[in-house]
């Protein structure tokens, strides 16, 4: 599904190398987790994959089902099936949540050469998906993320994911700022989307989220590289002993 080879990335405006050769393959139907200390490059990886400005790829490649992601505009990546759940979802005053969802859904369909969804079908779909995430009509009517609590913002991210049905989902510290109940709700939303055709890359500091979204593979990232890969037990090891032991071991 997602194949990253030897990815090197620096900041566009300054001479600072952030990713120093990331190799990673996420297969369809599998959940990969990336853990790592602050500043290891986890969020940068998610931004580079989703097409945010300000980064320069100096070496390596990233493909989604064989298509070169790095050659695409951000919106083309989304239409190709890549989705990033933001660590800090953006507030957009003046743009209604429903308008936003519908514009996004139809824009993707159009890019893929599909017909726009009818107003009736859209409404039915959004109500059904919103209900599962306990998102009420008022939240749907309000401007995108404006005045939302931390938990509401993250649930809104998962709602977008559920509506857009991407092939490859990247969750960037979706657990940050969530209480236990909100985390469960978000995890349930993610788990409902798990199927054999969809890949997940879950970026997190803590093992906590992985209790709810059980990963197949866990990677440890440090200083711009994946330094260790293992099964779910690796996350438990981090939780128990911190990163220091692992980093010392691979150094």
């Amino acid at each position, binding site marked *: 599904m997602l194949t990253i080879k030897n990815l090197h990335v620096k900041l566009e405006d300054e001479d600072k190398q952030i990713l120093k050769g990331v190799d990673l393959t996420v297969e369809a139907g599998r959940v990969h987790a990336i853990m790592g200390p602050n500043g290891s490059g986890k969020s940068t990886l998610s931004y580079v994959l989703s*097409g945010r400005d300000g980064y320069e790829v100096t070496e390596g490649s990233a493909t989604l089902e064989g298509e070169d992601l790095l050659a695409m*505009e951000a*919106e083309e990546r989304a239409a190709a099936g890549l989705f*990033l759940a*933001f660590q800090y979802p953006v507030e*957009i005053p*003046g*743009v209604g949540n429903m308008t936003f969802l519908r*514009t996004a859904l139809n824009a993707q369909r159009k890019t893929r050469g599909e017909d726009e969804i009818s107003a009736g079908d859209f409404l039915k779909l959004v109500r059904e998906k919103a209900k599962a995430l306990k998102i009420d009509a008022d939240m749907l009517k309000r401007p995108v993320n404006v005045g939302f609590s931390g938990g509401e913002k993250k649930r809104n991210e998962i709602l977008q994911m559920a509506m857009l049905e991407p092939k490859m989902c990247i969750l960037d510290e979706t657990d940050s700022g969530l209480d236990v109940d909100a985390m469960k709700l978000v995890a349930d939303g993610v788990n409902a989307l798990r199927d054999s055709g969809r890949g997940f890359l879950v970026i997190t500091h803590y093992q906590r989220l992985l209790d709810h979204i059980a990963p197949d593979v866990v990677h440890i990232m440090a200083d711009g590289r994946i330094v260790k890969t293992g099964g779910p037990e690796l996350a438990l090891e981090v939780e128990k002993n911190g990163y220091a032991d692992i980093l010392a071991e691979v150094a």
Partner: protein
Amino acid sequence: MAVAQTKLDLTETRIGALAMPQSKGWGQTARADALARLRAMGLPARRDEYWKYTDPSSLTQTAAPRAALHVDDEAPIFGEIDRLRIVFVDGVFDPTQSDDLALAGITIERLADVMAADLHWAREHYGVLEAAGQIPVARPLAALNTAYASDGIVMRATGVVEKPISLVYLHNDPTSDAVMHHVVRVESGASLTLLENGPAAARFNKVMEVSVADDGEFHHIRTQGRDHERRAATHIFARLGARSQYKSFTLTANGVLTRNEHVITLSGDDASAHVAGAALGDGAQAAFHHDDTVFITHDAERCESRQVFKKVLRNGAVGVFQGKILVKPGAQKTDGYQISQSLLLDDDSVFLAKPELEIYADDVSCSHGSTTGAIDETALFYLRARGVPRDIATDLLVLAFIDEAIAEIADERLAADIRHRLELWLGRRRQG
């Protein structure tokens, strides 16, 4: 202060090229008084403080600069709204295209007929609100208008007028120079919605005097047409009675020069005045210069005023905002709010803002804010990351930026029509 000789010369040259319409009795006096006012202050020049950001020379020169006619392929605005249409072609009333002027709750007359009458209620309004609005800041183009206006509508609402009165200004002559003057009186407890649309002329000088009596309600929604080269100087002078409501919204897209002045006095307690405007300028096809100049006087207790002006500028377009709130002694519990913002879509466009507060009462709440900025890149990326292409995402953010001004329109159908026009305007620029 003595008026400079060059200004007096300019004024006399302009006056010399105009013919005062024949009136008798009170109408003749009103025009002569206005002419005297104009002569005393002289036409505006660039060196005047009030015209610092907008060059008035093309508004004061003898002949109207040529303005190419716009060929419209779009369904007319307000077309779906049930309304009473009054059509003017290059500033001249056209009865053949207009509806019957009879409507329950309102009397509608032509200015020429009113001015020919010996006695008429309009006598207490025509030129009167304009003259009052000359203090403390001179508005010579309005005085010129009162003296020389060749057409206009005089209307008096006495009840709830069930459908909007719609003034449609067509432009058929590329050198037309129209001077129009309307008078609106909303009686106690009456309610009126007035629509205006169209470019009107190559050069348009329009004054509207609005008097809203106690508990009256006046709604005004205006669009200024799609002609790129037209010029307009408009003034609205309003006087508001106790508990009355006044709401005005203007959409301006295109126009090489527009100066819209609002001069509003809240003279009865608990009155409310909202003035809003959205201007979208693209200097690519023709220059775009848009000036909103607002002067709101609070002269009674517990009145509320609100100014919301938004401008979206690109390709060298220029936006100007001069907004003042004057709170007179004794106007306690005044609630005044003013916001002027611009969104600059490139480095070539310019926004000039001059917000002013002058307060002589000690128990008031007044605030103002002015911002200028570019599209929010973070929001843009968020939209694109969800699959919305950059140009559509930009338009969505532009519409969101303007929406606070459109939200000032009370009637949802009219607001929807305005939003639709904006979408069309943005869509045309996407294709181009």
